[in-house]
């Protein structure tokens, strides 16, 4: 009941509408921004494990480049997180 009341109030209050839009936008932005890096890291690690299985002697080099690749891919999620912060709290 309280949620319905809040929605009814929000329908007429521009400030509440703005808050709802900001919260929704922030949540969608962060959620979408986390999907891409998750797929990227999964693919990257899968390929790295395959490379190590084919050439175990190059495991060191593969792990080094894999770590850098993971960190680069993760930067996308961090950008999404920063957008989330800026939309929600600034």
């Amino acid at each position, binding site marked *: 009941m309280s949620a319905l009341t809040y929605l009814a109030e929000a329908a007429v209050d521009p400030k509440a509408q703005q808050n709802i839009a900001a919260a929704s936008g922030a949540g969608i932005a962060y959620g979408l921004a986390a999907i891409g890096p998750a797929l990227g890291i999964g693919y990257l690690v899968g390929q790295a494990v395959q490379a190590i299985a084919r050439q*175990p002697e190059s495991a060191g080099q593969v792990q080094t480049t894999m770590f850098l690749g993971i960190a680069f891919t993760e930067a996308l999620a961090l950008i999404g997180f920063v957008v989330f912060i800026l939309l929600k709290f600034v």
Partner: protein
Amino acid sequence: MTDVAEPLAVDGPPPAWAVAIDMAKRSVWLLPVLVIVSAAFWGMDGVLSSVYALGIVICNFLLAAWLLAIGGRIGPAVMGGFALIGFLLRLGLIFIAVMLVKDAAWVELVPLGITLVVTHLVLLFWEMRHVSSALAFPGLKPGPTPNPYLPTPDSSSTTPTA
């Protein structure tokens, strides 16, 4: 046919850990730049927020490397699992770390967010340049410095001359 995972054939310290330590050392060079830029635009609160964000980035790298090192010691599949679980775990930890301080009086969210992204990328590009140079020209890569006081396998005299 047995599906026992063999430990990864890596000599010395785990590569991911070595890279993360290297990036943590390089971040010391970034610190003065961060302090000057943040102080110029956001004052003391900006400096504190930037330093906090830099700490988050370094902890994130070290935690990722530690998880990969542990997983790599057990087996390739575990390393893959740790990489994916670690991604979710670290995103959650960064979220918590920022949420804990977002209402603090000394926090400026804009420099904190900018520092999070920029230092992450700058440290990565810097390290990538170093790693690609080391891969392209292995002779230039500095090796471990031998200790003159430890015996070597091919020499009988272990006392160094002054």
